[in-house]
Structure formats: C-alpha cells, structure tokens
C-alpha cells in the first residue's frame, strides 16, 4: 500500500482538489509546477541554507532521560520548539515563499488559528520583502493577542474573519475568498497538510525535513535509523506528516497520532476528528471532518488553538483508515498534566499542542529496549496565559 499521494492527488480514498472554478488556474499552476520547482538545485540550495542559518536546523534530537526512566523506555524529543518563531510551522512557510517567488507572485495571503502559522508567514514575508495578509478569526484575535502583535510588528496586515464561527475554519474560508478575488499576484500559504491537492503533499514535503533529521540523528545515537514509535499531535497534521514522512514505508516504526479530545471524545466539546468525523469535503479536499448529519461543519473545541480544527489532512485520513497510524484522543486535562511533567522532568515547556503528544506514553506501554521519538512541535511561550490560568501558577 502506498501512503504517498498519487497522480490524481489522492491518498487512498482521500484528497483531490474540490475547488471552485475561480481557483482552478491558481491551483493548477501550482500543481503543474511545484515538483519541478522543488527539484531545482537553486531551490534546494536556498531552502536548505535558510533552514540552517535562519531557522536553526537541524533541530536537536534530545534523549529525555528522566521521562525515559519514568516510562521505562527510551524517549527522544525532536526539538522543533527550537526553530525560529517557536514551532515547526516555519519549515513550511520558508518552502512555500520560495515557491511563490518562483511563480512570480508578489503578495501572500494566509490563515491562522493560534497565530503560529500567521507569525511564521509574516516572518518569511518580512525576510523576502513580500506583502502579507493574514486572516484570523475575530474570536482568535481576541484570545491570541501576543501573536497578533507579533504579526503586526513583522509588518503583516491581520484581517479579522467575522463570518461563521469566527475561528480557524472561517479564517481559512476568508483566505480562500481573498485568493479568489486576487488570483494573479497572490500566493496562498496554507499552514497545514490540508487544502486542495497539491497543498497536502507540498506541505508534507517541506515538513519532511523533521523525519529526515530523525533518521540520521538516531543512526548516530543508537546505531539504527528508525525508532519503534514516532508520536506527534495532529491538528491539520503538518508536524505529524513531517515526523512520519520518512517512516511511512518502514514497517518497524509505529506511527502514533494524538488528537485533541477537549473535554472528552463524547462530551460534545472535542476536536478528535478520527473519532467524531465522517468522510466529506472541507477546504478543498476529501478527508474526514466533523459535521452534522446535514453536512454542516461543526465547530470543534480544544484547549489548544492549534488543534482546534474540524478536519485532518487527507494523508492522515488515509493513515487512519488503513490502520497504518494509531490515533489517540487526549483531553485538555491529560495535556495539561503532560505539559507539567515535561516541564519539570526535562526543563522544556511545550506548546499545548505538543502536550497532547506527550500525554500518550502511559497508553503506549513501550518496552525498555524500544525507542520512542516525540515531535515537540512547538514551545509553550504562546500558551503561558492558559498555563497560568489553568495551573494557577500565580496564586
């Protein structure tokens, strides 16, 4: 079975490009050119130079001894939290802005939920001197004020999405509408492995640097280039796609995805798409999404704004359906406990999104001789207000 995209833009039953005709020329231009552009030696050179000198790659693979001792196995942390701007998101925005330049585009539009992708996009736009518009749900603008300020400091225009539920899915709709209204000079930098083909594949390729590094780093440290488990959290699924990418066809590596179960999978306040979703079309691709019987998209809930999305990318829907990856639902409470544990055992404050991935050790029951790699997708600075509030740190 193949876990990569086929020539029709599908992963098994999921994927495709369900877009209105108004977007067809843009998406088709991207589809017909992205592989050639990425393969150009000048692109590879520029991409890798920026990842090294600007983002700070390779990010360390850190052996977490105290966590390992607690769970009686060998736990490694892949430190994407040390990337410039504090999360893996910038691997993708660097790649896409280099593609946009080669397509002759002068303006960038993006969507953002927590603001991490918005900040990563505003950052590369500043770096490349491109105009940047970021759509953000009006509600998210209020609850993620520091990232709004960072985007503005970087020169981006932050546009409130006031339609629908005023959160990430609506910001994505608005970014798509903006692209429809500005088809010639603008490139849309999607922030996860979602959207119409070729976005899921393109974003996965840019994030694949994560698993490429894990391979050689494990080879150095453990004398073998694969772990027994790779764990990552899944919002849309970009950090997981990057952490899984080079192990998709490695049967000795189990792929573990942590979804946000909010107040509990069946509480009515959850974002655990593989548990609650049905096949359908959202934001341009066929995948699993949370929806009513009538096919209306349901607004999800999670303590973590980056996992608060009603769908997952088509690659993950395929990994789920085929059984290649195992999906766990992690509640707000479990994530908070894991965040404290990682902070106090390893001195690393993780992002709330990442905390969901750190919460599955107990359930994993890895053996003492096995190797577990967790992708630490981001750092917890942006979540301090939530941590202060929920953990009563100031009392």
């Amino acid at each position: 079975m193949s876990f990569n995209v086929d020539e029709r833009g599908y992963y098994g039953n999921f994927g495709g490009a369900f877009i209105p005709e108004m977007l067809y020329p843009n998406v088709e231009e991207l589809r017909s050119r992205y592989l050639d552009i990425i393969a150009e030696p000048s692109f590879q050179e520029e991409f890798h130079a920026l990842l090294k000198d600007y983002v700070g790659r390779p990010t360390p693979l850190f052996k977490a001894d105290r966590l390992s001792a607690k769970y009686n196995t060998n736990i490694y942390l892949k430190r994407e939290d040390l990337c410039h701007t504090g999360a893996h998101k910038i691997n993708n925005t660097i790649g896409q802005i280099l593609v946009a330049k080669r397509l002759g585009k002068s303006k960038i539009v993006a969507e953002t939920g927590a603001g991490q992708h918005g900040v990563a996009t505003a950052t590369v736009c500043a770096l490349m001197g491109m105009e940047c518009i970021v759509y953000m749900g009006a509600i998210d603008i209020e609850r993620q004020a520091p990232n709004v300020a960072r985007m503005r400091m970087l020169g981006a225009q932050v546009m409130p999405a006031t339609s629908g539920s005023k959160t990430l899915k609506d910001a994505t709709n608005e970014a798509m509408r903006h692209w429809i209204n500005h088809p010639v000079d603008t490139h849309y930098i999607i922030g996860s492995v979602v959207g119409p083909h070729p976005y899921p594949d393109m974003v996965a390729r840019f994030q694949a640097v994560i698993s490429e590094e894990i391979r050689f780093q494990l080879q150095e440290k453990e004398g073998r280039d694969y772990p027994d488990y790779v764990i990552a959290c899944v919002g849309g699924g970009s950090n997981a796609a990057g952490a899984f990418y080079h192990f998709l066809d490695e049967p000795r590596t189990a792929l573990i995805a942590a979804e946000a179960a909010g107040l509990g999978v069946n509480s009515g306040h959850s974002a655990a798409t593989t548990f609650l979703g049905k096949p359908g079309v959202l934001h341009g691709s066929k995948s699993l999404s949370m929806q009513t019987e009538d096919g209306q998209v349901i607004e999800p809930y999670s303590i973590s704004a980056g996992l608060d999305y009603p769908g997952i990318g088509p690659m993950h829907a395929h990994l789920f359906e085929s059984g290649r990856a195992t999906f766990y639902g992690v509640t707000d409470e479990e994530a908070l406990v894991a965040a404290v544990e990682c902070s106090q055992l390893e001195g690393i404050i993780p992002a709330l999104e990442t905390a969901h991935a750190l919460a599955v050790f107990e359930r994993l029951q890895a053996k003492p001789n096995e190797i577990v790699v967790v992708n630490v997708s981001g750092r917890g600075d942006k979540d301090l207000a939530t941590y202060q509030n929920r953990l009563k740190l100031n009392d």
Partner: protein
Amino acid sequence: MTKMNRISALFASATEPILNVYTTAGYPHLEDTMTVLNALQAGGVDIIEVGMPYSDPVADGETIQLSNQAALEQGMSVAHLFEQLKDMRKSITVPVLLMGYINPVLQYGVEAFCAKCAEVGVDGLILPDLPMVEYEASYREIFEKYGLFNILLITPQTNDERIRHIDSVSKGFIYMVSSASTTGAKTGISADQEVYFSRIAAMNLQNPRLIGFGISDHDSFVKASKNASGAIIGSAFVKMIAQAKDLSAEIVAFVQSIKGKN
C-alpha cells in the same frame, strides 16, 4: 429520458434575455422558500436557482454567506428543503436549479440526492466546489440517470482549451462568472468585462451562456445579455428580500424592474 429537460426547452424557445435569480432556501424565514419561488415566477423570472445553505460557502461573498448562516440557524437542511419543494411542480413551471456545496450532497448520499431532485422536479445542479474532473469520474453517470443537468462555471481566467472541455461536458447552459471574485464582491459591468464577454461569444460554443456575479439591476442585466443568452442575479436579490416588508409584492416588482417591465 424522453421528456425534454425544462432548461433545454427554455433556451430553445426564448426570444428575450433569460433572467435567472438565486435565492437562499429557508430565507428570510425558514418557511418562505415556496413563497419566494412563487413570487419569482409571478414576476416573470425564467429560471430559479435555489441555494442550499452551507456553513462554509467559500465561493460566496458576505451577503449570501449571511443568508446561509441565518437559514441554517433557522433550521434549514437539505432534507427539509426537499420537504418544502415536495409539491413545487403544482405551481412552478419554470426550470429550477439547486445550487450548493458538495459536502451536504455527499452526506445525503449522491444517488439519494439525485433521486429526490428528480422526484420533486429539479432540473439541474450548480455545485461550485465539484470540479469537472471529479464530476466526470464519479458523478456524471448518476446525474444523467436522473436527468439532471450539471451547470459548470467558467471565469475570465479559464483558458480556451478548458472552456472547450467544459462546453463538451456541459448540458443546459454554461455559467459565466463575470469577474475573478466571490459573489456580490463587485457590481456593474466594466469595459474589460465586455471584452471578455465578446471573446467567449465569439468561440461559438455548443451551449448557451448566462452571465453571473456583479449583475444587480436592469442596466447590468441588459449589458450582460448583449453577449450571452441572459444573466443571473444573486446577492442583489438576497439583499432585497432581507429587508422586504411585503415579500411577494417586492419580489414581483424586483423581477419586473430587472427585466424593464415596469
């Protein structure tokens, strides 16, 4: 299919520009759908396009988005729409299209949806996020089995080769989007747009064309109709019914004013 589709019959016999009006089902009030349809027909509309409300209508601008949201909040659904349209053909003789997004259709079940359309007397579908390749691969056979025309869009950015392909797959008419935009984003017809309209007119396509997006009054309707068989009005109509005090009378007056008959 022995019976001629109402859309084909209309285009074959029309002597004046065709007016297609879009309305959101379940709007302004949940049970207004049939009132709106009957008034549109009484006013002299030639085709009625009934929008199936969706939570995430990416091709639509603010006016239609808000009407979709309001209709959903009032309890509108695909199943309820079919209930409302159950006896539609007792009064409505003009062609009726359903417009909407593919996800609710997938949840209803494509075949069940098409069967229900045929049963209540729907003539065609406009599903902007169902692209032509997907239509040809997985939907065309089912739509045709139930005699439903799939109306495809072209835009100023669609190249000639693709327009020819769309023309070969289309039945009924081609929906010509007047500018690169979402619905209701722009109003009026510019000189550039007229160049685009006449370029397409000169292609001698096998299907007739209706022009939509940005048509809001008699003037833009007449301008658009010079280079096509007629035009489509959506946002301007939805805006009007949002504020109408006497819904039926104002709809009749609106349609007549667009057609220049009052």
